[in-house]
């Protein structure tokens, strides 16, 4: 923190931000201004649309008051912008507990207190004699082994204390938990209770007796058990009020020993408190070697003794500083959005509170800091400090009897000692969890430093569930396999320490093994923390294997995914044996090009999609080899969605290779064009302008080899024609290529003449390509189709001044000015913007190899929902690109799966009304420019399309969404995405396997008024359907190059031709929906407005007829005739027209 005096000055102000704001508002003198401000505020929510702010000059330039200046300065110092300050305040309001609710909770707590101290005592019995327990309650602990010495009796608690965040005021909604410590009277405990789980047995019996009595009390809506922070030895009793407050609060009762009962020196991490003789019925190894230490066990006992001292520490440090409390609340939200705080070994709110205390005590945080600054400082600390290597301690004493940090590092993966110097607060936190916390902190810091405007939203409001955050996930199911794994890994001491919890015991070694095996392919490995279950008091506690499944998340390094080789040491090195031992039979000796003979592992993967799944091979191999977990128990979720973008009969590839072949062919063609001799003007640039050439065509083209018998040859024009008696031939879409010529003054300056000259170039191009390179060509007035190696390219010659000529308007005075016309915009889009976009996205694919898969899955899904027609190819590609260029708070996806999930999330949550989607291709836009774009957007909102996508080349107009979608269609997409996302995530997170992954791709058909079913015989892309048909028709292709060199049938797609006619004829009356990838059905939706009777007008008779209604003659759609027209226009293609007339009336 900067100069102290400033902080002192501001101290009062931060404490009461609520007071500050009205003070600012109240600076206005006249009431009129206040009302005008109110109006600007009240208006937008009504329309849900932001309005440009209009403030009068007088308001903008009035003399500032002192308060206003103070507020502004404070905002500048303590927050990074006024928006952030307002946002943080709103969020805190949302999560903080209201005073009213606090009162209700306090009342409930008093009741609990009264009842707890009145629970009757029971006489003393042996610990193993549990017959006194009433029938309706079970001991909330696995008592294995059952036999244990000691006696137990129940006495009401000596003291009932509320501990934890509730008192501090840092607990956050919606899950309000109040922790209550019950100090057990000394009479219950005996000297050696620290040993062999005796203390935990007594603790459990104590709770069981309490539970039995409290459950009979009508005050409580529910009484059940749960594990404290997931620790299987430490149950706690959960109490919830009856009635409407049941969901308001959960009171958790934690029995704890009387102060100073346990001698801390016996609970050091190096000490053993669970004897092998007792636990395993045998002494360790029998050779008199020392008992293994039980650091976790010791910690759990210590935790119970320190509950109160921790509370005291927290309340002295945080008590009076509102900023620190706000900071803790924000940190809790931050952790929860990342699912880091839940389950055993979670990075809990308590831990971050202690971390804040640590930072205050080391003067890294000052008590006058704002909540935002605290958040920032803690994140900064986490990002830069590795507690797995350099532990920290709150202990200030230099007592030599205290253990050294190194002792703790030996016993625990993460070290953060409390003020006693004996208790490791992070004892249960695994190294993976801490690394995940660190990784998230680092990401968040970068985000905060980038000064992005929506940092708040991304940091605190965006959930990061595992399935959406990690490229691949894998489920280990059933969990009981881990027990065998523990034995295989010889983890007996750990089991002894963990009280038999084999999941916790195996977790650490398992993640280390996988991290080592995945090596450079891996950026981060995270594991889910087993959730903390609740169970009824009459039930036995859940078994370890019942805690669901263990899910691991893999964040992959894209550059590591290209190699199929695991290079080991040279054969004669001593490490070679280690390598062989690690990889087992997969390790083999290989001679490399440089002559070295090395150990190596080679994975089988030919295509990009297979290479992406090498981690799957690594994981299954290592788990089977080292932990005996068979492949059947490893449910790897990395590529189930790949099936949707796999070509026909190509289950081994998701098409990146096929696209690369086409791009390669295009490169060859552009070389031929550059070198062409005899053109009046030489070729200056060749640019791709087709989805294939930016790797985003859903189904990549394959080389066409037509079977001549299938076609009608048109020899004189060397072309093939479709035949009536055959099924529709394969669909071949020419790939558009724009060809620029060198500049010349010879071009005519008249639009019509330019067209003719261009046509002459097209003809000449075809001639020359045929003469010089023997390519089959066909020229039209606007393009030249070229057949090269089975691919068809459509070359469009462009004249760079043509859009300008189309724009020229001459005023009466002879002044020539430029005005956009539809034709000029169209031409500019096709010949200038589209090539630029194509090359930018082509570049993006080189940077992020998963881009192609994500963009194609996204498009596949949108089209499968029958909405493909309304969204241009380019607009969807740009949305997919945004996931890579602006991945915050995630990192760029490395697998199509996670990218697709984020696509659904983006589509379903983005506020298109009030925000442009900025896709900063090549990072060309500066922060200032983006701000400018945003304000320009607000000012021009009403003239812009409903969906606005801004790129560096297209800052104002959003060319790719100009012609659609409409607001209704966009809304429909948003709704569909919002439904699909949770469904798909649930499927992928199901440990038993995802089930039918195509469910979310099947469109709802019940919303349509008419369904037109098409005959598959005339659907050329029938096999691309979501549910690929088992059999389809022959499409006249050979598997080997045939003798025919004629131009294949181009762009002939009967469903598309049919749709064009339908839209032209009935576009005023209805909307038509179709999946271009093999859809068998066209959905028709009548436009509601078109069924309104209209007066007779010569311009609106289309498809209507005159009727008499209520004595008046009006025009209504001639529905019966139109339905028959559907069949007539699509004769041969249409199978049936299903009118669902119950849905509409004329």
């Amino acid at each position, binding site marked *: 923190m900067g100069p102290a005096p400033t902080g002192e000055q501001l101290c009062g102000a931060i404490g009461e931000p609520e007071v500050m704001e009205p003070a600012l508002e109240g600076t206005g003198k006249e009431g009129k201004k206040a009302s005008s401000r109110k109006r600007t*505020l009240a208006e937008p929510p009504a329309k*849900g649309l*932001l*309005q440009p*702010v209009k403030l009068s000059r007088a308001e*903008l*330039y009035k003399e500032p008051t002192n308060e206003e200046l103070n507020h*502004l300065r404070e905002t500048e110092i303590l927050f990074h912008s006024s928006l952030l300050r*307002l*946002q943080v305040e*709103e969020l805190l*309001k*949302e*999560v903080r507990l209201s005073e009213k609710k606090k009162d209700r909770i306090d009342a409930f707590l008093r009741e609990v207190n009264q009842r707890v101290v009145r629970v009757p005592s029971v006489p003393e019995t042996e610990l193993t004699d549990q017959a006194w327990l009433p029938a309706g309650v079970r001991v909330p602990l696995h008592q294995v082994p059952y036999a244990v010495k000691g006696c137990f009796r129940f006495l009401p608690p000596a003291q009932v204390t509320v501990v934890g965040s509730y008192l501090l005021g840092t607990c956050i909604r919606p899950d309000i938990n109040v922790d209550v410590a019950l100090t057990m009277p000394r009479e219950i405990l005996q000297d050696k209770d620290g040993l062999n789980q005796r203390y935990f047995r007594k603790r459990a019996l104590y709770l069981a007796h309490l539970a039995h009595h409290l459950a009979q009390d009508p005050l409580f809506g529910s009484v059940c058990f749960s594990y404290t922070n997931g620790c299987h030895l430490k149950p706690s009793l959960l109490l919830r009020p009856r009635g409407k407050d049941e969901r308001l609060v959960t009171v958790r009762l934690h029995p704890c020993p009387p102060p100073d009962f346990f001698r801390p020196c016996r609970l050091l991490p190096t000490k053993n408190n669970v004897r092998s003789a007792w636990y395993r019925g045998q002494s360790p190894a029998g050779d008199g070697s020392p008992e293994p230490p039980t650091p976790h066990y010791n910690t759990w006992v210590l935790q119970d003794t320190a509950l109160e001292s921790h509370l005291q520490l927290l309340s002295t440090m945080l008590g009076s500083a509102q900023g620190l409390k706000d900071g803790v609340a924000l940190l809790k939200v931050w952790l*929860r*959005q990342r699912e880091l705080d839940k389950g055993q070994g979670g990075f809990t709110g308590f831990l971050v509170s202690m971390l804040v205390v640590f930072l205050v005590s080391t003067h890294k945080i000052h008590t006058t800091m704002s909540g935002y600054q605290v958040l920032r400082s803690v994140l900064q600390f986490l990002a830069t400090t590795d507690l797995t290597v350099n532990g920290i301690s709150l202990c200030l004493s230099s007592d030599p009897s205290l253990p050294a940090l190194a002792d703790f590092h030996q016993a625990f993966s993460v070290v953060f000692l409390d003020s006693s110097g004996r208790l490791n607060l992070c004892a249960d936190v695994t190294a993976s969890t801490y690394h995940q916390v660190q990784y998230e902190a680092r990401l968040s810091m970068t985000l905060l430093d980038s000064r992005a405007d929506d940092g708040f939203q991304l940091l*605190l*409001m965006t*959930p990061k569930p595992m399935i959406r955050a990690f490229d691949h996930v894998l489920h280990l199911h059933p969990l009981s396999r881990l027990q065998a794994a523990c034995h295989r890994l010889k983890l007996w001491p750990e089991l002894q320490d963990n009280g038999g919890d084999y999941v916790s015991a195996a977790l650490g070694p398992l993640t280390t093994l996988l991290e080592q095996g995945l090596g450079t392919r891996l950026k981060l490995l995270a594991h889910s923390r087993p959730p903390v279950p609740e169970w009824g008091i009459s039930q036995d506690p859940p078994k370890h294997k019942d805690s669901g499944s263990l899910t691991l998340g893999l964040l992959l390094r894209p550059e590591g995914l290209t190699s199929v080789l695991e290079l080991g040491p040279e054969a004669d090195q001593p490490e070679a044996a280690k390598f062989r031992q690690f990889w087992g039979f997969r390790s083999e000796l290989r001679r490399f090009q440089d002559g070295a003979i090395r150990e190596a592992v080679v994975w089988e993967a030919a295509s990009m999609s297979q290479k992406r799944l090498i981690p799957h091979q690594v994981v299954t191999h290592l788990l089977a080899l080292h932990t005996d977990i068979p492949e059947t128990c490893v449910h790897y979720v990395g590529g189930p969605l790949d099936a949707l973008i796999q070509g026909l009969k190509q289950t081994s590839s998701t098409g990146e290779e096929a696209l690369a072949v086409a791009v390669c062919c295009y490169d060859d063609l552009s070389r031929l064009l550059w070198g062409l001799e005899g053109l009046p003007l030489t070729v200056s640039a060749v640019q791709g302008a087709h989805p294939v050439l930016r790797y985003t065509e859903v189904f990549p083209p394959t080389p066409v080899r037509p079977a001549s018998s299938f076609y009608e040859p*048109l020899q004189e*024009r060397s*072309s093939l*024609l479709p035949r*009536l008696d055959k099924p529709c031939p394969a669909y071949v879409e020419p790939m558009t290529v724009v060809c620029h010529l060198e500049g010349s003054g010879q071009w005519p300056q008249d639009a*019509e*003449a330019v067209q*003719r*000259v261009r*046509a*002459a170039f097209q*003809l000449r191009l075809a001639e020359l390509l045929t003469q010089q390179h023997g390519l089959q060509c066909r*020229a*039209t*007035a606007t393009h030249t189709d070229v057949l090269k190696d089975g691919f068809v390219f459509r070359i469009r010659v462009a004249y760079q001044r043509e859009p300008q000529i189309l724009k020229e308007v001459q005023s009466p005075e002879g*002044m*020539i*000015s*430029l005005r956009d016309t539809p034709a000029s915009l169209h031409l500019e889009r096709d010949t200038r913007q589209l090539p630029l976009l194509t090359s930018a996205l082509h570049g993006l694919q080189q940077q992020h190899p998963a881009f192609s898969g994500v963009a194609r899955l996204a498009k596949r899904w949108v089209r499968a929902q029958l909405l493909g027609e309304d969204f241009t190819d380019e607009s969807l590609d740009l949305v997919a690109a945004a996931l890579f260029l602006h991945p915050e708070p995630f990192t760029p996806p490395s697998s199509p799966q996670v990218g697709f999930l984020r696509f659904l999330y983006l589509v379903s949550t983005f506020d298109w009304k009030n925000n442009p989607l900025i896709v900063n291709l090549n990072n060309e836009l500066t922060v200032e420019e983006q701000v400018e774009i945003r304000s320009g957007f607000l000012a021009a909102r009403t003239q812009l399309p409903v969906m606005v996508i801004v790129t560096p080349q297209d800052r104002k107009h959003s060319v790719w969404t100009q012609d659609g979608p409409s607001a209704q269609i966009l809304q429909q997409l948003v709704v569909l995405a919002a439904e699909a996302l949770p469904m798909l995530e649930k499927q992928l997170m199901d440990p038993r396997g995802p089930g039918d992954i195509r469910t979310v791709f099947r469109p709802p058909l019940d919303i349509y008024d008419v369904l037109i079913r098409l005959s598959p015989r*005339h659907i050329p892309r029938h096999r691309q359907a979501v549910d690929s048909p088992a059999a389809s028709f022959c499409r006249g292709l050979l598997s080997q190059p045939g003798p025919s060199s004629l131009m294949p049938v181009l762009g002939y797609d*009967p469903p598309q*031709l*049919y749709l064009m*006619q339908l839209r*032209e*004829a009935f576009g005023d009356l209805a909307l038509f929906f179709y999946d271009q990838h093999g859809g068998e059905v066209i959905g028709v939706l009548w436009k509601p407005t078109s069924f309104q009777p209209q*007066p*007779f007008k*010569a311009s609106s008779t*289309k*498809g209507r*007829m*005159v009727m008499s*209604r209520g004595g008046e003659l009006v025009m209504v759609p001639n529905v019966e*005739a139109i339905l*028959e*027209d559907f069949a*007539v*226009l699509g*004769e*041969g293609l249409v199978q049936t027209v299903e009118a669902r007339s119950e849905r509409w009336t004329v």
Partner: protein
Amino acid sequence: EPMERRPLPPHDPPGHPSPPISFPAIPIKFSEKQQASHYLYVRAHGVRQGTKSTWPQKRTLFVLNVPPYCTEESLSRLLSSCGLVQSVELQEKPDLAESPKESRSKFFHPKPVPGFQVAYVVFQKPSGVSAALALKGPLLVSTESHPVKSGIHKWISDYADSVPDPEALRVEVDTFMEAYDQKIAEEEAKAKEEEGVPDEEGWVKVTRRGRRPVLPRTEAASLRVLERERRKRARKELLNFYAWQHRESKMEHLAQLRKKFEEDKQRIELLRAQRKFRPY
């Protein structure tokens, strides 16, 4: 409410725009097989006094609501029973005013996909129009003797027609360019003739082709000049030099902050209304 479908009777419907017109309706179907029919609304073509029309008065029938599968040939055939048909022209919209018809090249202006169209049918004699107005129908577009292609048949034949003939295209381009070059040459010759020659009032036209070319008369060029001027002036100006300038720039900064604050508050209000502050 009872509904009754019937062709429009020959009296003016209420609320109809003036001048009152009447459109008899002729049912038309694609073929025998269809149950329901569309209706052609026909009228003798007429225009207001004083305006000229491309279509001959009295002999032209104006037809509304021609279904998409009905071609010019079939319409001509269907109406030939009323009298000899001289020509049929289908259009997307009715002609509003007189517009010169230019012959459109099939290479450069391909025919659009037809929807419901309007037609101008010119009979050889005025009697054809009156006979057509009394036609009862239903007319059948496609019959056994004169089948009309639709669906797959039509698309295949359309595809065959769309395969271009490069020779024809070349010929068309050459003809056009010859005419164009000639036109340009004439214009240039004329401009050269007029170069430096004063007109009746003594004005001399200065063109770009002259010996001393002048700035082109375009908006862009004049904007460029203005911009250059502005920059020249800005260079001379002193910034934050006088005390009042300093004060003003501070005030400007404050005003910006205020504006931003208002914007932010509005944004927050909106988010609050959308319940966007619920973190989970």
